[in-house]
């Protein structure tokens, strides 16, 4: 997850702050979700673990950005990564929160192709931890009361914000794809369709849909490419689910997201080569 980039606006500063194009909207939104979830249901197992995840994330970002880019970074992205780790992983131990945050942020500086990091940081960190340390941590899957009202509020609020950020098509198409594939799974397995759509009614998916798959830094640029990518994520998730993989959405994005980025880069370089050849000719 990462904060959205926003172009400069010729408006007063206070107006920029309250506008939805503000890069702090995403951090504010995720904080609101966290606070609402905690104040209504007490979702945080401990404040310390969430704070540890945020602190580790921000600290790593500060150090690495300063060291490698020579500048102090905007911390919105690191904050979202930290808070996402704090919400999305569940462990009685403290160390997974710190390690997951540090791995997530460090991946941005290590796993780069042509100057771009290709994995969504928290998706990378959480997937790695779930895969390598299943005896120590799990992912959020059962929180927030399972009730309708908080879910509707988050969906509506999230949809409005994502729409203003011009990324609603990604979230909307993912949800539509998930539902189609859920019914397909139900038909294939003979299980109740309610069980197949159950996961998307939970809070883990709200964070996944609003913050992870829409991350501007790690999604392809073209709208068509984004749509194809997100359908592929849902499709791979279905395949993984048919093999009873509990954390199918994380792993699907882990595989499809960077693959799409690499394909886009490859296509870009081909176009650039072709354009260069044309100019040369």
């Amino acid at each position, binding site marked *: 997850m990462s904060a959205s980039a926003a172009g400069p606006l010729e408006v007063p500063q206070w107006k920029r702050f309250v506008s939805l194009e503000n890069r702090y909207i995403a951090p504010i939104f995720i904080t609101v979700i966290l606070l609402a979830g905690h104040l209504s249901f007490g979702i945080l197992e401990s404040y310390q673990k969430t704070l540890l995840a945020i602190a580790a994330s921000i600290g790593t970002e500060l150090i690495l950005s300063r060291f490698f880019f020579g500048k102090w970074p905007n911390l919105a992205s690191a904050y979202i990564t930290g808070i996402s780790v704090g919400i999305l992983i569940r462990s009685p131990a403290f160390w*997974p929160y710190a390690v997951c945050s540090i791995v997530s942020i460090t991946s941005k500086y290590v796993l780069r192709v042509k100057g771009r990091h290709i994995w969504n940081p928290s998706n990378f960190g959480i997937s790695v931890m779930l895969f*390598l340390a299943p005896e120590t941590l799990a992912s959020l899957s059962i929180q927030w009361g399972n009730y*309708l009202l908080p879910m509707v509020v988050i969906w509506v609020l999230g949809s409005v914000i994502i729409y203003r950020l011009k990324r609603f098509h990604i979230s909307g198409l993912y949800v539509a794809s998930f539902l189609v594939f859920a019914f397909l799974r139900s038909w294939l397995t003979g299980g109740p369709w309610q069980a197949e759509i159950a996961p998307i009614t939970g809070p883990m998916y709200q964070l996944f849909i609003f913050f992870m798959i829409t991350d501007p830094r790690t999604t392809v640029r073209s709208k068509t490419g984004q749509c194809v990518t997100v359908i592929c994520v849902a499709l791979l998730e279905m395949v993984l689910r048919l093999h009873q993989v509990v954390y199918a959405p994380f792993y699907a994005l882990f595989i499809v997201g960077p693959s799409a980025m690499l394909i886009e880069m490859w296509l870009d370089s081909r176009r650039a080569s072709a354009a260069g050849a044309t100019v040369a000719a």
Partner: protein
Amino acid sequence: MKRGPLARIILAIFFVALVVSPLFIKRMAARREVAKSRLDLQTALERHGFYLQEVSHAAGVNFVHQGPTLDHKLDHIMPEVASMGASVSIVDFDRDGWPDIYVTNSAEGSHNALYRNQHDGTFKDVAPQMGIADVNKPGTGVSMAAVWGDYDNDGYEDLLLVKWGRPELYHNDGGHGFTRVADTGLPAWVNANSAIWLDYDGDGLLDIFIGGYYSEDLDLWHLNNTHIMPESFEYAKNGGRKYLFHNLGNGKFEDITEKMGISSRRWTLATSAADLRGTGRPDLFVANDYGVSELYFNDGRRFREVGEKTGVGFAPKSGMNVAFGDIGNQGKYAIYVSNISEEGVLIQGNNLWVPKEGSAGDELKYENLARDMGVELGGWSFGAQFADLNNDGTLDLYLTNGNVSLDHTRNYWYDFSKVAGGNTAIIGDAKNWPAMEGRSLSGYQQKRVWINDGAGKFVDVAQAVGVTDTYDGRSVTMADLWNRGVLDVVVANQRGPLLIYKNTVAPENKWIEFELIGTNSNRSAIGAQVTVFWNGQRQVQEVSGGSGFCAQNQRALHFGLGKTSQVDKAVIRWPSGKMQTIEKPNVDEIHKVTEPA
């Protein structure tokens, strides 16, 4: 990037090291596992000070639990929704000075068993003659738990049987038989797994607490619909109601739950009471499935829920056990609550609630030290009890576990986790749950026997000392079954055999036991505290009217003493408030103490 290749290489190495760090941690843990491998008995005795041998058949006990079969609308998930009912409690019902064993069965028409101690290493089921075998008749529900208390102070322990069905009180007729007490004031129907005896107001008469699980409105054999499941996996409040019954002294009980400030509808699976603040009154700890635990401070005229304030009611888990133990020999109780941990899916971790340094009384606060002390991960944990298994002077912890053991190769966790995260309209309706189709759900799990090193760590020695079964364990009790000065372990397993682990302890370790008889207090002495002082140490224990999961230990309190051959004193605080000090009581002896007039 501004930095050159070297910096980037160093960062890459750091990154790879970080990514593989969980594997390193896992490898270290695996090395520790080697220490848990099986040992021959003599080596176990030398290394750990005890070993356990399963002797149920030799002892004449061949009981196999039968699980409930509920309404056919639940057939597709029957193993999960009907996964409880195996329970065991210890009682000396005939006052011959030897512990007997009562064990419940849970199929309609099945029989419970009362194993009378034959004093020769064997037991004999006398439940049919005593009238407490055929208690699972169709239409009355099936047994879930049994606890013993002398509610009329006539000297014989009476039986409270809770069911998914009609709760029943049986009067002990002088050790010769039992008569079901009519018109007790108990409800006509509850779906409860948890019940305890306690004298909450210190009037010398034992009262009753029952914690409902499924709603009491449900007859689980005749359902109108399938909306019976929790509304949430972690925040459910649509379970059974709680009941606090005041003993009126004439064989009748008055429902005073609401008056006393208890109104929860969480899904209770375990309850126990102990005086946590030194007030002389029992406080109540309630462990709930699908939600947070509750702690009720007993203010005499009212109970006050302080779970969140004290720290124990903050993180929702799947509470299935409540056991108290003075694990640090500091004169205060830690509380052990079992939960679910399944690798790769759900890591709740069990809770060991230890009083925070410097907090006491109304400002009592707890912190969870399960991870630090090494008793956090126990699979799908159920019953657990503290007991000094090797008589070394510190309390150890026995935990049983395992939920549904069916097909070894296929498990239900994926489908379970899928639905558990769903909206209440989905999770709350059993028909939305995928069929189990013979799959296991945290089955075939290894038990834990954690021995206390006295320095803040517990080490699992289950395999080493002979606890190798992998049944779906539910209820654990501790009893000195043959009056040898060691605690044996009895375990009830769901759809499995009743196991009796006979304990052999290094003979150089001393012990002392106290069997208390109340006079002004309730005769069972439930709520009495004994503090033993020896060799600069002290340990407190309390007579319990039910603890663990659907279990009750022997009435007598057992203290291991290590190699010390002298106890300085034992201080008894009776439920009536009377204090009694016994100077230099003999070690290696069971002391029968009657409350002074």
